[in-house]
């Protein structure tokens, strides 16, 4: 039971002022700018955009500054900001096949049309702390090489599908309704489009743990990275007055195709199965985790028994949203004074009754 309490306005005002003071910190140290955050902490900005479900780099950067680097606090700020804007419409689905690639790798085939292109990755660094960075040494510009013509990198899943060895995605008629968890309350079982929308904004840490659990045996995936691609895709909005889809600009996304355990039976030939992840920015770990969890949740499609937590739809989808999660966890800080008094009184009474019984027994 929540108690309506009054008082504390002055304490709250002072707390906000103290917070602003601590956020700014030592005045002799230059203030951090949102441009610096956007440019130099770009992956933090990518995470905030993904999990707040709003693609706007400057808003995400400002939220990170305002939240003093607390990422879930920043995500909360951006989610709140999102509610102040009206929705104009839905964009055409991205054609990730036409992505302007910045990175493209596959763990399934060494030689691919378009090749293995590493892009700006941490993968091969030695994970040694770089003290040069702290010294502010100037960074040279990146090396260049001649680029292939566009369209040289077809999807790996299409290459495997040529021999019908991997399941195809089901398509839908052009104007079929698309689930929207921001409009309709979730219900279980949840259709795949709603699951993907939920996972896309899910907490990276939570999904990473679940993905890891599927590899450790809590689920029967045997996954391979079919392809990871990162780069820019065009956002287009159909404008009725114009009669065509208007380009709005570029959106950076990371896409992961997991190729997983093959299955067949009931007369169907054995084929590789798939998991899919898509995230804003260069959010590779998130896209990979999302793909593994997507696959785990598709247990029905492959007649798999749901044994591990990552296969439990209600468990995964109800707990992966970090704003929802922190809302309930942090609400515990609200006054529960009367509640607790009731507990205390009950406990004391039980103790008295227990002691009385013990005395009587002697």
């Amino acid at each position, binding site marked *: 039971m929540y108690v309506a309490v009054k008082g504390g306005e002055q304490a709250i005002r002072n707390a906000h002022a103290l917070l602003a003071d601590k956020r700014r910190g030592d005045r002799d140290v230059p203030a951090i700018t949102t441009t610096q955050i956007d440019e130099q902490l770009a992956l933090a900005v990518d995470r905030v*955009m*993904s999990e707040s*479900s*709003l693609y*706007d780099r*400057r*808003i995400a950067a400002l939220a990170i500054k305002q939240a003093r680097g607390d990422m879930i606090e920043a995500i909360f700020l951006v989610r709140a900001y999102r509610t102040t*804007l009206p*929705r*104009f*419409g*839905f*964009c*055409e689905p*991205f054609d*990730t*096949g036409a992505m302007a*690639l*910045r990175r493209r790798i596959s763990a399934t085939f*060494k030689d691919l049309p378009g090749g*293995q*292109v*590493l*892009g700006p990755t941490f993968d091969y660094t030695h994970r040694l702390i770089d003290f040069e960075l702290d010294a502010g040494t100037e960074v040279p510009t*990146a*090396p*260049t*090489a*001649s*680029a*292939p013509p566009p369209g040289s990198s077809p999807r790996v*899943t299409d290459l495997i599908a040529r021999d019908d060895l991997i399941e195809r*995605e*089901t398509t*839908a008629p052009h104007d079929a309704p*698309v*689930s929207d968890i921001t409009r309709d309350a979730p219900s279980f079982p949840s259709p795949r489009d*709603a699951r993907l*929308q939920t996972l896309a*904004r899910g907490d990276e840490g939570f999904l990473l743990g679940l993905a890891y659990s599927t590899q450790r045996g809590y689920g029967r995936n045997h996954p391979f990275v079919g392809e990871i691609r990162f780069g820019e895709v*065009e*956002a287009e*909005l159909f*404008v009725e*007055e*114009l009669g*065509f*889809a*208007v*380009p*709005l*600009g*570029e959106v950076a*996304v990371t*896409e992961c*195709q997991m190729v997983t355990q093959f299955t067949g039976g009931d007369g169907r030939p054995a084929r590789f199965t*798939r998991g*899919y992840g*898509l995230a*804003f920015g260069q959010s590779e770990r998130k896209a990979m985790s999302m793909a593994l969890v997507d696959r785990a949740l598709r247990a029905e499609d492959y007649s798999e028994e749901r044994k591990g937590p990552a296969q439990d739809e209600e468990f995964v989808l109800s707990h992966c949203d970090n704003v929802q999660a922190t809302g309930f966890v942090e609400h515990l800080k609200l006054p529960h004074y009367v509640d607790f008094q009731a507990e205390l009184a009950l406990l004391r009474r039980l103790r008295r009754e227990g002691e009385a019984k013990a005395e009587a027994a002697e």
Partner: protein
Amino acid sequence: MTKDQASDCGPDARRRALGLLARATVDELAGPLARFWPDVTPRELRPADTGLVMLRGRAGGDGAPFNLGEATVSRAVVELPTGERGFGHLLGRDVEQARRIAALDALWQRDGDCALLEAHVLGPIAKRLTAAIAKHAAETAATRVEFFTLVRGEDAA
């Protein structure tokens, strides 16, 4: 040179123009507007505003669509005294830039102005974007792995 001669007048040409305008910097639009069309004041048919569009992916990359998350977008609709109606849309929260795009879209539809626009607005944007795309592609291409197989002792013998 009329609009017909400068480029075709179909939706594809207009779409291409709008795509370039959506990626323009403020200077690439404000500069030419001030220089070539300083007295043009289009009427706003609906107050320019910022809102959201829902971005969509496809399951598996090519399957059924799903809602991925929203993006901020700004838009404007203007009309010139000569009757042309222009539409401006771009990602982000810059409403003034949306107005500039709408004004230029309206001007693009006017014979005589179209060629000027191609030369002084669309051309420079396209040139900058081509160079940027080439630079990114070249940087990316340098990270392409060149595998070479090592000949083993037994095979070489």
